[in-house]
């Protein structure tokens, strides 16, 4: 049992960093190598995505998520699924996506996972599966499972956002379908968020049973005001509301693209009709 930490000690704690640094560095290196170390706008977006993964998995957030707070777990999860994964897509040029698609085994698996129905089921399914209280509690005390959980969130996030954000246009779903796709995910998350928010106190009770290795439990409860009940509610509400903001924002993006398309094609379409 460590001695008590202050908030600034906690925020500056880097004990989770080394474990996260290696995979993130590898990912960035693989990306740069695949693009022959050229550097443009997309590179920076991709790097921002990787940086967010590093922040989610290598900072104090990981410590709290692992041992103390459901709300920190949820924040981490949302960073990976809703922000990092879309950034990775936006940072990848179309040729690279198509090159990966043409790879023998990986390409076939990728194409299967990126089929809109599969991608949707995977995204929503992972969200629901890992928040089943029993499985969540199991993953808490088990580092291997915990890492698997993160990997699932990131990969299912990448699959989920593919049909919406892929730079390769042939992979995209139609705008109207995309609106329902995103709204469907929003409803599914809202439902799960409502269930967690209004669940009986102690549904995610596992955190209280873990040893207070960092000595911050007192800090969190008395200074941050996050009693176990508040923490559970905050976790549910994070899943429910900010999550949906991202989806609504994405719906706006899709519609903006849709209306832009109309404005550029209607002139061409009318012109060709006039000629005929």
């Amino acid at each position: 049992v460590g001695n008590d930490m202050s908030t600034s000690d906690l925020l500056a704690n880097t004990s989770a960093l080394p474990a996260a640094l290696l995979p993130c560095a590898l990912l960035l290196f693989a990306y740069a190598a695949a693009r022959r170390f050229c550097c443009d706008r997309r590179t920076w977006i991709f790097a921002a995505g990787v940086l967010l993964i590093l922040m989610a998995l290598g900072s104090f957030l990981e410590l709290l998520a692992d041992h103390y707070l459901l709300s920190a777990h949820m924040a981490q999860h949302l960073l990976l699924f809703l922000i990092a994964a879309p950034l990775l897509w936006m940072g990848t040029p179309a040729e690279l996506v198509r090159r990966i698609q043409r790879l023998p085994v990986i390409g076939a698996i990728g194409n299967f996972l990126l089929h809109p129905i599969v991608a949707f089921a995977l995204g929503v399914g992972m969200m629901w599966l890992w928040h089943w209280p029993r499985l969540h509690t199991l993953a808490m005390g088990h580092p291997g499972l915990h890492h698997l959980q993160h990997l699932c969130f990131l990969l299912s996030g990448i699959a989920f956002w593919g049909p919406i954000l892929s730079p390769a246009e042939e992979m995209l779903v139609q705008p109207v379908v995309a609106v329902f796709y995103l709204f469907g995910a929003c409803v599914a998350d809202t439902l799960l968020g409502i269930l967690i928010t209004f669940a009986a106190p102690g549904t995610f009770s596992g955190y209280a049973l873990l040893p207070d290795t960092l000595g911050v439990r007192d800090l969190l409860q008395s200074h941050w005001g996050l009693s176990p009940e508040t923490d559970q509610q905050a976790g549910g509400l994070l899943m429910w509301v900010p999550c949906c903001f991202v989806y609504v924002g994405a719906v706006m993006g899709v519609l903006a693209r849709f209306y832009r398309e109309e404005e550029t094609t209607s002139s061409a379409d009318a012109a060709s009709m006039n000629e005929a």
Partner: protein
Amino acid sequence: MTEKMTDVKPAVPRGLYRWVSSVDHKEIGILYLVTAAFFFLCGGIEAMLIRIQLASPDNTFLSPAAYNQIFTMHGTTMIFLVVMPAFIGLNIYLVPLLIGAKDMAFPRLNALSFWLLPLGGLMLHFSFWHGGAPDAGWFSYAPLSEKPYNFYQGVDYWALSLLCIGIGTLSGALNLIVTVVTLRAPGLRITRLPLFAWMGLVNSFLILGAFPALNVSLVSLLCDRLLGARFFQPDGGGSAILWQHFFWSFGHPEVYIMVLPAFGIISEVIPVFSRKPIYGYGMVAASTVAIALLSYGVWAHHMFVTGLSRVEHYIFSATSLLIAVPTGIKIFNWIATMWGGSIRFTTAMLFAIAFLIEFTIGGLSGVMFATVPIDWQTTDTYFVVAHFHYVLLGGSLFALLGGVFYWFPKITGKLLDERLGRVHFVLTVVGFNLTFFVQHFLGLIGMPRRVYTYPALPGYSSLNLISTIGAFLLAAGMLVLLYDIVISLRRGQDAGDNPWQAWTLEWATTSPPPPHNFAQVPPIHGRRPLWDLDHQEDPDWKAEEGRPPREMPLQGRAISKPKLGMFLFVGSESVFFLMLILAFLYFHGANATHPPNARTSLDPLRTGIFTICLLASSGTLWLAERSASRASRAGMGLWLLFTIALGAAFLIGQVLEYAGLFYHRVTIDTNTFGSTFFTLTGFHGCHVLLGLVMLSAFCGIELFRAAGRKRPASSTTLSALAIYWHFVDAVWIVIYSTLYLWATT
């Protein structure tokens, strides 16, 4: 051309019978509008009674009991019998014209949607002769609305009539969506829809998602009141807070249901009278979707004083503030549309401008309410009354009046008198602001709402008197409108096809339009087909040139009307069941230690066997569909009979289960487990029964046809039925795994 058309016109019934039997969208739209106007008169008289009672302190004009009934009836009438029917009526009249269609997708369903409205209205008002009108407010907060506190039948009539109106509204919304999706004229892509039709479409989706929540609230309340269930009675283990969650999860989207069509009207009126296309069409259209989606996530701001947790306060405050963004975008778009235009100040345009100002004021006080501490200070005071009247009267009603002046010539063929229109406008705007602006101050100095009178405190008397004087001016303004309508119908100026030189399709046909709407739909290459038609040398699409042509993806596979309608119905029903399941889960924790509960009363194994019957029936129905697509009538009939038998077996299982529970004294009034269990499974059983009736009817008709050797029925009917049946099965899988598998462990 017109002569030829009159030749082929079938004999139309005349007089009252014509209106009662009509399935024409234009006549039904007019019926909606006239009904709304009639109830507007009722609700207006109630409002005047309220203002007379409040004109002076310690007034005894109305008794406390009468006052409670009247303010409840005023709110309920204005929302469900005036604003919504008026907007739905305008949508039903105009949307087929705007998209170049002949009628709605389901004309007879359209008539049903309408006739449920007067039925509901009559039922609501019948309560006056049956012990007294409802008196628990338009929101019927529990436990005040529960039997021990509200013994007369008023609230029962309230709930039944809203169910009736709600079902009509749902079917109307469904019809509108199918119409817009399947019946658009060639060239009218979704991205080219007139904004009024687009907002009608989005609004209809909002209705499909929100009204099931109202229906669940109402049936639960009725179960409480009539069958002794325990949903919302705290002394029986129920939760009054649950009522507020349920009601406001409908009630807040409802606010936007009453405002989105107003936005649609404004988006048509402002461009036409500014002689400019709308500024930022895409922004206006997309922000509508944002409003619709966000509106589902803000309801708890009605509940900031019910003891929600701190976290819930933060989150719902943030979402409520956020919804101001897409609304603000729209306001700026409309202002930018007027900017630099050559504005014609017709009465319609005047109301549109007044809408912008009054609605913005209402929106600003709305942002104040999203801030929790301000809400704590001002909730349940006249500040709230001022706020929502600015939104609903200064917002929705002003837009509606603008719409009346704009489309009256199209509907009747006569222009409304503009001089009288201006008098009406001035009286309305002055009266409205006088009535409601002072109520902000009344609220800030602490006058609570919903009270029948007040003592002569400083400021109270004079502000209330000003408010009452304003109300009389407002009423006078409405009488001027009525006079204007009557006189213009008698000897108004002929409107011609397009009196405002507008650009959308409804102005391409005669005023009023012929029964078939269009002799010929003009070609559509953009968002303003009539502009392109009149300005062939300078059409809209030329201004947008400059990019290379690009392949457009297909707009989606064509889908049959019955199938799409059924998908929408099923989607709406799933919200209904979802909320009943949430009610079960809400009480599950508390019931775990207080039997009877799922563990003591439910038998997963026996019900599991009957569940397999139901699941198998989905398989047999699929086989029936396959036989139908292979034109094998005998095979189809056989598989249908199997399906019906399996469904009936499931129902028998449910009857046996109920009998066992009743035998062990587990009924709907035992505790919250009984209430939620029987309501949920009972409604599911009703759905199975309805499915059986429909399948049997279909089967019977097919056998009859086989005897007469007529052509086989179109398989779309069967596939629509199949969607319903598979949905009922899917719902049961969720219910079974939640109630019988999860809750019993």
